[in-house]
């Protein structure tokens, strides 16, 4: 019996180890490439011959073709602005749908559901023309507006959270003469810190990861690129041989904060997924 237990134990752990090697290898590989001294996208051998920090240094100092530091700043700026707007939009909508009763509440929720069924970037070209019509295409403001514009439709998670806060709290405050706005920002919001953090962080992360909308809106305006489109641009056929190792360095720099944020928030993430699907 004991032997069987030991066998089972070691088998499980060896299996886990093998699987995690498969899972982590591509990630380790990017890290490895980011330190590789030899330029070029492909090498006829697997392990780099020499390691260096040059790729990271060049990424910030060599601004002739690409300006990574500026992209980083752009993304940070867009992320901060759009996360403020999105959080406000998202929490306001969620509070209204969870706590207030008004005529367009139900229609709005069904409408949001239907809107969500369209492929997200079907409207992309039209968004581009609208921005162009207003005269702000290829600008960072356009990106901020696009990222935060739909935030009111992503109310499922926060609404689900607000729904769990006891109604009795609202009612007692109401008796004490509080207005609904006071209930919102003095009672509900302080009780919803976890979900606020989640909303802030998810909307903060989006600009770092989005490639599609940013690339359509920015076109060839390299100066206003975000890191995602900039780094992807480095892998274009004409650049890949010179910039591949720098791409890896940039990718590592962007991934570290994003990955840390994600791992911190994984719990809410799960709740969001199951909530969103059940409640619609």
């Amino acid at each position, binding site marked *: 019996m004991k032997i069987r237990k030991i066998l089972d134990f070691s088998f499980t752990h060896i299996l886990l180890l093998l699987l995690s090697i498969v899972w982590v290898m591509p990630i380790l590989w990017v890290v490895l490439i980011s330190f590789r001294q030899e330029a070029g996208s492909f090498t006829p051998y697997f392990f780099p011959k020499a390691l260096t920090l040059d790729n990271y240094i060049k990424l910030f100092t060599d601004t002739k073709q690409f300006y990574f530091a500026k992209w980083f700043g752009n993304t940070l700026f867009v992320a901060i602005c759009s996360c403020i707007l999105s959080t406000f939009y998202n929490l306001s909508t969620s509070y209204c749908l969870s706590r207030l009763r008004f005529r367009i509440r139900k229609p709005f929720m069904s409408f949001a559901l239907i809107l969500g069924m369209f492929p997200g970037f*079907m409207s992309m070209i039209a968004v581009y023309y609208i921005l162009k019509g207003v005269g702000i295409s290829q600008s960072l403001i356009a990106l901020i507006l696009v990222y935060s*514009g739909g935030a009111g439709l992503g109310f499922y998670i926060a609404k689900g959270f607000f729904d769990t806060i006891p109604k009795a709290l609202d009612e007692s405050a109401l008796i004490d003469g509080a207005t609904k706005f006071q209930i919102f920002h003095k009672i509900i919001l302080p009780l919803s810190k976890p979900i606020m953090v989640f909303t802030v962080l998810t909307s903060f992360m989006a600009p770092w990861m989005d490639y599609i909308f940013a690339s359509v809106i920015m076109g060839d305006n390299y100066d206003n690129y975000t890191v995602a489109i900039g780094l992807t641009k480095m892998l274009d056929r004409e650049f890949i041989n010179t910039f591949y190792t720098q791409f890896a360095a940039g990718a590592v720099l962007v991934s570290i904060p994003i990955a840390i944020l994600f791992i911190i928030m994984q719990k809410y993430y*799960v709740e969001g997924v199951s909530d969103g699907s059940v409640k619609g």
Partner: protein
Amino acid sequence: MKIEMEETNSTIKSVSKAKGKSFFLRDAFKNGDKFTKLSLIIMGISNLVHGQIVKGLFFIFTEISFLIYMITTGMEEIFLLGSLGKTQQGWVYNETLGIDVLQDGDNSMLILLFGIFAVFAVSIFILIWMANIKSAMELQTLKNDGKKIPMFKDDIKEYLDGKLHNTLMFLPLLGIFAFTVLPLAFMILIAFTNYDSQHQPPGNLFTWVGLENFKAMLSVGGTISNTFWPVLGWTLIWAVAATFSTYIGGILLAILINKKNVKIKSFWRTMFILSIAIPQFVTLLTMKTMLQDEGALNVLLQEIGLISGPIHFWTDPTLARITVIVVNLWIGIPFTMLTVTGILMNIPKELYEAAKVDGAGPIVIFFKITMPYVLFITAPTLITAFIGNINNFNVIYLLTAGGPANLNYFQAGKTDLLVTWLFKLTTTGKEYSYASTIGIIVFILSIIFSLLLYRKTAAYKEEGDFS
């Protein structure tokens, strides 16, 4: 106090319900005093007379600006929607100059965009107009009852209390309208025009063609439909394969990590979660280069001596399809693992104990207890995941960009999903009408699968009762 409030609330509700929209309009015509009746034509007059200066000015200002907008451009814009422009850009003989002059044509795209905007403007104006009459009627009743008329300050208070939803939802709705509804309406209408690479404004006009695009897409025999059906087929195969493989793999992985004898569970979990924590454009683009003919994996395998020549992961159509599904496992399995872990921990221990007493082995337990239990709870997420995979743009686009290309297809490759084909048609092909048609078809597919979900999910019905 509370009961009283609820009572008044419910009476207000029932009254407003009984008086439908048309009803209060008729009421205004019939019983309105002269100011209410005047408000039907000159908005805000009743508010101004009764001392609600700000509100009244707002109504009047809205009306004036709306009228100016309609007279200067709005009317024409709506009118032009019918034809989407008639004058084509081209060389016209100018008699005074005696030469051909380039004449500006109508821009069908802008006509459509402004036209939709004008239609929305009209509907919003009608809403404000009705609010104006409602307000006038309210003032009339208040005055007749001899009650105090709320001033601007009271109104503001009301907008932070009873009408808080108007205040809080205004900006979010504006955002949704400008960046979701308006563009979507535009693109849906495009599906009924011939806005393709041959009809690009400003050089050319495009016009309404009814259901032609859908016919071209769904019929059998044309180039478009010869692409559509195989791409649709692959989309469905992909969605089924990707959903179920990651689902089952994720459950197995979660069970493995949650085994009683596994040490440092959170460490293992984090190792797997890394693959979804890192932005997809990083991981997928890395995978793409790793699996190239001269990429790292082929080099490694050749160094070890497992293969003599490179494996063509991306250039062989069948292999490329298998590869995207396998790479998708890398992202999808940790994702399912994450969602399932919590559910696994909630399975009642008694179930397992009872099964063990009955002499069930681990495999029987898995198929008779774990699977049914998890399936029961996660069935809704399964359908959401399926819809998500139909729309799984990132994995396909960043890995293969739809390739390898197929000459029999219309601007599509062997691994293209409907959505990546849509993306290519809009960005590189400029075949907007076909792209929009595909968008609508994907929408219809999603709706069908979601209806299956919502009809089966009791939780959704319960939410309706929530209050």
